[in-house]
């Protein structure tokens, strides 16, 4: 598989602005994934070279991140293995404040000499740019944690699972899809291990071992005589878990409407591929939707992307302040709306939380990339906007004195900046199932899985598609629909939320490829929710002929 093909494949359905940079790194043999890497004591000594050099050159603050990134990707198509890729990337990134201005440099030469040179470069950049800096950088205080460590709580390390087992699983899923009517099927496993060491002049030395996993596929059904095709993607989520996610536990399965199978903390890829193939064929003859107002019942693997775009991004303080104005944009959720204390972001049942500690999520870490211990906090409570997402050099601008701990860099050679934590919709308090939700709807559409997504540069007007759509009439599913997309604006949409299923339906959506910044960086993030209902949403018909 060529890089262009990989990028196209990896971009499929991801809640992202731009392309991934996951393939950065050197190809290595599979067994090299198990090599332990640099000892923590040596990393501490190397980090101290950076911190001491920075201080000797006049920096008032410095941090060093020594990163080792081990990735494995397995790609298959029908009955063929397209590629198995193992990569390693290792180096150090040094960030300083000198003359009140940030400077950053990185090197893959993790030696005393290499680190010293990179630190000198970071300080020189800070000093050169301080001439056009208007106000000195102001950092919120942070505790010195000393020498601490954190690890994603995994049960099965992907690096210890034989490649043959992974290949067998993907080919089994492909075979199931082909046997059930698919004409083509692509499948892949993305496996990530970030071994990150952070040290700063504040007195922390933090060693973290982070794991992420993403199984995915796309099946295609074709009507050759008509020259038409339809696709159906997986119902899995990328997760902050080990390979145990692939166990397909019955206890973690949920029954969706019309034979749909949904998954919580464990994924049955072969079963999902089987259902997907049947649904892809069904889509070829599904009824084209009549445009109009519908009550929408949105499944969590679909709603996650809507949360990502209409809540996660607009509540990033760097966007609110204008730092992303030239690229990802700004935000309608301005500072005055927060300060008012009564901005109605959603209806009373809407509670949205940011959480960097959520087990199984992509964004879970013990400490962020500037040494702040992670936490959970409210963004919207009972429909009212209550907070943003901020990092150390921003919180003073919203009259707060503690970072929210959501600073992240995609690699050791990229500068860290504010990234979205896991942002999730809290489940409803009363016991309420998917079937009960549908039973309440007179004219509506049930939408599952992610699809097309687009939102304006202030995160207001949006349009979303989905993977599968079912028409609801008088409390019952009456058939599959196609050509469905809904349009709304953020505030109207969240204020139209009338009901949310309880905790038993709660699931995580996620993306590996949330893009932001210049040069652009990717980060991985999850969004949890239970199935929720939104009344009177505008649905358009996207069918065209060319």
């Amino acid at each position: 598989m060529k890089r262009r093909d990989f990028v196209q494949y990896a971009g499929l359905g991801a809640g992202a602005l731009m392309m991934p940079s996951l393939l950065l790194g050197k190809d290595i043999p599979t067994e090299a994934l198990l090599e332990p890497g640099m000892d923590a004591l040596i990393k501490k000594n190397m980090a101290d070279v950076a911190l001491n050099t920075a201080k000797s050159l006049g920096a008032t603050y410095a941090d060093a991140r020594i990163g080792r990134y081990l990735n494995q990707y397995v790609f298959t198509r029908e009955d063929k293995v397209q590629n198995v890729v193992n990569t390693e990337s290792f180096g150090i990134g040094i960030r300083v404040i000198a003359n009140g201005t940030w400077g950053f440099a990185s090197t893959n030469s993790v030696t005393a000499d290499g680190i010293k040179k990179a630190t000198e470069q970071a300080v020189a950049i800070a000093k050169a740019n301080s001439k056009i800096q208007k106000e000195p950088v102001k950092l919120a205080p942070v505790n010195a944690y000393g020498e601490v460590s954190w690890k994603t709580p995994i049960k099965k390390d992907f690096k210890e699972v034989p490649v043959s087992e992974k290949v067998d699983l993907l080919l089994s899923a492909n075979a199931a899809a082909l046997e059930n009517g698919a004409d083509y099927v692509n499948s892949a496993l993305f496996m990530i291990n970030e071994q990150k060491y952070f040290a700063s002049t504040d007195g922390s030395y933090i060693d973290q071992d982070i794991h992420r996993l993403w199984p995915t596929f796309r099946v295609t059904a074709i009507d050759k005589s008509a020259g038409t095709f339809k696709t159906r993607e997986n119902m899995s989520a990328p997760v902050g878990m080990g390979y145990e996610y692939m166990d397909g536990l019955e206890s973690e399965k949920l029954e969706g409407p019309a034979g749909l199978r949904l998954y919580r903390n464990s994924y049955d890829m072969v079963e999902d591929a089987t259902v997907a193939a049947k649904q892809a064929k069904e889509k070829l003859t599904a009824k084209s939707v009549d445009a109009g107002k519908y009550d929408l019942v949105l499944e969590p693997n679909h709603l996650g992307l809507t949360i990502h775009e209409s809540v996660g991004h607009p509540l990033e303080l760097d966007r609110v302040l204008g730092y992303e104005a030239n690229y990802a944009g700004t935000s309608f959720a301005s500072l005055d709306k927060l300060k008012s204390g009564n901005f109605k972001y959603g209806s009373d049942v809407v509670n949205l939380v940011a959480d960097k500690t959520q087990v199984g999520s992509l964004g879970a870490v013990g400490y962020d990339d500037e040494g702040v211990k992670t936490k959970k906090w409210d963004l919207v409570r009972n429909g009212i906007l209550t907070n943003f997402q901020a990092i150390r050099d921003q919180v003073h601008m919203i009259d707060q004195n503690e970072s929210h701990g959501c600073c992240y860099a995609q690699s050791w050679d990229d500068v860290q900046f504010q990234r979205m934590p896991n942002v999730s919709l809290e489940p409803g308090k009363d016991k309420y199932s998917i079937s009960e939700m549908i039973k309440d709807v007179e004219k509506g559409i049930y939408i599952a899985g992610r699809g097309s997504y687009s939102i304006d540069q202030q995160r207001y007007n949006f349009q979303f598609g989905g993977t599968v759509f079912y028409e609801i009439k008088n409390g019952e599913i009456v058939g599959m629909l196609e050509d469905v997309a809904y349009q709304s604006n953020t505030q109207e949409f969240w204020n139209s939320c009338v009901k949310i299923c309880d905790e038993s339906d709660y699931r995580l959506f996620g993306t590996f490829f949330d893009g932001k910044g210049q040069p652009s960086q990717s980060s991985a993030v999850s969004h949890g929710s239970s199935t929720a209902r939104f009344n009177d949403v505008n649905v358009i018909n996207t069918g065209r002929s060319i």
Partner: protein
Amino acid sequence: MAIYTKEEARKILEKALSFSKADACEINLSGYNSGNIRYARNTVSTSGFSSNQSLAVQSSFGKKSGTATIDEFDDASLEKVVRRAEELANLSPENPEFMEPLGPQMYDESITYSESTANITPEYRAEVSSKSIVPADAKDVTAAGFLNDSAGFSAMINSKGLFAYNQSTDLEFTVTMRTNDGTGSGWVSRDFNDVSKFDADEAAMTAIDKAILSKEAKAIEPGKYTVILEPAASADLLRNMFRSLDARSADEGRSFMSAADGKNKLGQKIVDERVSIYSDPLNTEVPTSTWNGEGQPLKKTSWIENGVVKNLAYDRFWAKEKGVEPVPFPSNAIMAGGDASLEELIKSTKKGILVTRLWYIRSVDPQTLLYTGLTRDGTFYIENGEIKYPVKNFRFNESPIIMLNNLETLGKQVRIDGNLIPYMKIRDFTFTSLSDAV
């Protein structure tokens, strides 16, 4: 890091190849220096410099291949990386689509390198930022911009006698100017291989003027409008269409280029007969490397001529399957334009919308190549040949195929993201809702 000359690169590659014991071996060597500055809120935010080089060896025994990379180029390291690639090849499964490396090829000399771009300094980057920030401050506007420059090389060799080398430089600049009352926004994008063509003052003033002109936009009803698309607005839609010109997807029935009964649309007229799109690595405005990553020569190639699909991209495997010559994917897109300036296009428009750029474009339906997205940073209502007032941004749902069938007028070409795209006037462009975003 040094940008290796052709002879320096050849020496390293030949040495590495001399260690190969595989049936076939292909080695790529590349490196770059890249610097950037980012600013927002009329002050600098981040800035950095990166440099890297890498050598990748692909060794093959029969249809089994392995790849290994390294960034040290002494003899022992080169031998080590070749051995590792061979070990991996022996462990790998057979690839039924494996293609033998190409033999020696003839390449045109590329024109992608400019010494002046390679010599850009941190001071120059700060000066470009200042040229945005100072005039923005003076006009009650806030600047947010990004400048990235790079110089690099790539080279490859293989066991069949192929050798290729290219040096290139690039500069990319964008700036968004937002009026301080929050009601206006303007933007420009500039990119060049040669920095001497870049005028930072002109770019900044264009964005500032547009921001001020777009203040206090009025809402008008969404619907079908005649639009004048600036090249930055249409480029993304056209690029998405271009990326879909893959023969294999078309033949397999999963592309907008697929036709009934298992055929593809090669040779069919799919858009207005005035539309002609080609690629040319030696175009002096948008030069690219004259070979691709597989060592295939890149030549001037027509893709759509007078509205008819002239070529689809065939990779080497699919070309063999279909019994045709391979056609490599293009590295730039050049759409033939007309003589009309933007001013002339506006003057000839009775009622219409001028669009600066489109944003967050995503595929809605690959079957019809339908995309959605929004206008951004300067959208204006035209009446009787004049810009009357700024209008609020729209969401669109449109296919570039439908758009190019609704062509009214082609204007002058402009370089955008390494491509040459003309201004275009299009009738019945579909806006489906309004956005309050500025």
